[in-house]
Structures are given as structure tokens and as C-alpha cells.
């Protein structure tokens, strides 16, 4: 009896001092096997066409000054490899996510108007860029470089809001794995974005999903591209730092 307890104690000691198992889990684990297969195989993944649209846009020359994304960035597979994994980050003193940076490039370097969030071309380009980070770990910007935005994002994550008076943390930290309605509450890591969400029957950004959550707790959703949403994105990427990117993901 004491011998059994002893060996149990030793194995517990060894386990806890071995590489600590990462308790973080992507919502991929909650998908049915068919949907997982759909995500894994790019020939079956409905985001396939968004990527092809993105590839075409990458080559499209600006009508204003003849520049395309390719003019500066060359082959997307080379120049954008791992880039999505590092966003959001500070560029020209502003916290930018990928959508914001795409628009900054369009206006500053191509002299074109911005793409609206969730528009087909915006999703095509963001999916294309995210796809170049598939299989790579998230490398969130160092907290020192984004200190104020990180703190704001963290506060927003823990702040109770809306008529239901709920914070992100209450569902996604405290109750992840439990059920809300018929669905299991995921830990809410941004590893799959932009996703093909089956409910949307199309691609969508992380900000679209965040706005869904906000209206879900009956709060006024922050506007697309708002400082608050980018700060929440930043906090989420930090929270998921090191997790492998699956973009473009499939979600129900």
C-alpha cells in the first residue's frame, strides 16, 4: 500500500517536472472527424477558393500607380512565410492587425482605397497571407513592444460587458470544456483564422467572430477595425503564443 503510494508520488513528481503538458487546446479538437478532414485537406477545404482569389489579387496591378502586392513582396510563399504568426504588432507607431496592414499598404503604396472588413477581396488576401503561416507557431509581438495595447486588450478580455454581464474569461477560461446550449465552449484561441465557418457559409475574420460574441452577450459590438478589437486580437494571440496556426480553419 505504502509502496503503491510511493510509486504514485514518484511518477507524479516526474510527470510534473517533465515537459509540462500544454493544457491549451485548439477548437480543432472539438470538430467532428469529417470536419477535421475537411480542414486538413486543402483540396476539400472550402477556403481553397479564397486562397485562389487571394493569389490573383496579389498579382493585380494598381490602376493608380501600376504596383501590385507582388511588385514589393514578390512571391507570397517566400515573403509572407510566418508573417501572419507575428500579427498584431506595431507598425509606424500604430497597432496593426493583418487587415489593417493590408489597407495601409493599399493606400500608402498602391494609392488605392481600402478594402472593407469581411469583403471578398479582404478575406481573400488575409486568407492567402494566413495560409503562409499554416503549421507554424504563433510568435506574438513581445509584450514590451506593445505594452499599453496588451494591457488594454487584457482588461477588455476580463471585463464584464453587455446585458448578460459576461466577460470573455468567464466562458473561455473558467468554463471552457463545459456546454453552452448544445455546443462545447472552446478555449477561444485564434489559431484557425480566417475561418470558413459553416454557419456563415463563407470565410470570416476573427473580428467578425468577436463581434458575434459581443452581440451574444448583448453588448454593443465594437466597430470593425476599432482599436478595441485589435487589442483583443493582440491579447488572444499572446494567450495562444506558441500554438500552431491552422489557417484557414473550418468551424461549425
Amino acid at each position, binding site marked *: 500500500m505504502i509502496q503503491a503510494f510511493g510509486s504514485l508520488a514518484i511518477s507524479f513528481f516526474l510527470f510534473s517536472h517533465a515537459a509540462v503538458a500544454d493544457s491549451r487546446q485548439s477548437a480543432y479538437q472539438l*470538430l*467532428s472527424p*469529417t*470536419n477535421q478532414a*475537411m480542414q486538413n485537406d486543402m483540396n476539400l477545404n*472550402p477556403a481553397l477558393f479564397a486562397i485562389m482569389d487571394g493569389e490573383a489579387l496579389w498579382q493585380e496591378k494598381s490602376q493608380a500607380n501600376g504596383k501590385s502586392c507582388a511588385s514589393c513582396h514578390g512571391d507570397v510563399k517566400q515573403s509572407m512565410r510566418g508573417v501572419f504568426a507575428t500579427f498584431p504588432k506595431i507598425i509606424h507607431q500604430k497597432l496593426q492587425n493583418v487587415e489593417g496592414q493590408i489597407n495601409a499598404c493599399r493606400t500608402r503604396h498602391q494609392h488605392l482605397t481600402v478594402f472593407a472588413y469581411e469583403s471578398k477581396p479582404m478575406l481573400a488576401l488575409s486568407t492567402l497571407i494566413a495560409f503562409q503561416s499554416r503549421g507554424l507557431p504563433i510568435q506574438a509581438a513581445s509584450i514590451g513592444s506593445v505594452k499599453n495595447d496588451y494591457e488594454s486588450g487584457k482588461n477588455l478580455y476580463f471585463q464584464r460587458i453587455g446585458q448578460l454581464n459576461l466577460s470573455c474569461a468567464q466562458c473561455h477560461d473558467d468554463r471552457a470544456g463545459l456546454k453552452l446550449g*448544445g*455546443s462545447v465552449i472552446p478555449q477561444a484561441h485564434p489559431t484557425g483564422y480566417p475561418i470558413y465557418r*459553416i*454557419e456563415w*457559409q463563407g470565410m470570416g475574420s476573427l473580428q467578425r467572430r468577436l463581434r458575434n460574441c459581443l452581440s451574444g452577450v448583448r453588448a454593443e459590438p465594437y466597430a470593425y477595425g476599432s482599436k478595441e478589437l485589435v487589442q483583443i486580437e493582440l491579447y488572444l494571440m499572446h494567450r495562444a503564443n506558441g500554438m500552431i496556426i491552422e489557417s484557414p480553419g473550418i468551424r*461549425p
Partner: protein
Amino acid sequence: MSSRRLFISSMTAICLSPWHRAQASTSDAQQVISKIIGNQSVKTGRIYFELPPLVENGNLVAVKCSVQSPMTANDYVKVIHMIAEGNPLPNVVSCYFTPLSGKAEFSTRIRLADSQRVWVLAQMSNGEFWRTSADTVVTLSACTEMI
């Protein structure tokens, strides 16, 4: 459960005009099947039908159908029909084969509006009909969303 469904569908038939009904009834699906079969008899079995018993979202459901057959010029599967009882329109897809198909099998992705029974009807080159069905629980509706 089935008598409750019968009650609801008969109430629906009285209260709403066909264009506003969000969901076809079991009898709509049976009408479609009768139209396909005509006066012929239909045997149950022979068809392999893969439908997930629990669906996370009805907008995109992977299905697979397969019928064993030598697929020769004299003996092949002519067509496989899929009919969904709980969809606004019961007909989902009809797939036609020839001996050159080699195998009477297909996979596709369908929409399911609600938890329901889905029927698969196969017709052989000699005119014979076979059928099977599978039930599924759908946790989110597919066809009747708001934009």
C-alpha cells in the same frame, strides 16, 4: 414523437400557405419518392449510406452513398436519389451512373435544415428500385437563416 409531428404538420397545413412553410413534411418527401418510383415496388437495403448521426452545423454535411453492382452494360446502377424529409425542398441530388463509372459511389456535401430522416433511392438498369434511410440530429439550421 411521430404523432406530434403529424399534429404539427397538419396544423401547419391548415394555417400557412405552402410558400411560407419553412419545412416540408414527411408526406412531401413520400410524394417525391412516389413520383420517382411510380407503381413499382421498392426493396429495402443494398445501399450503403454514410450520414453523420450528429451534425454540428447543417449548412455543410458530408455524405457518401454506394451501391454494390457489377456495373456492366447489362447490370449497373442507373441513378441514386437523395431525399431529405426535413428540408424545405425534399429533393437534394440525383446522381446518374454508367458502366464506365466502374463503381456506383459518390460523396458530396449537403444542407440539412433540421434533425430528420434522409432517404436514398437507387434504380438499377433493369428498373428495380432499392431504398434505405438514415436519421440524423442537426444542431443548427441550414436553409432558413437571415443575412
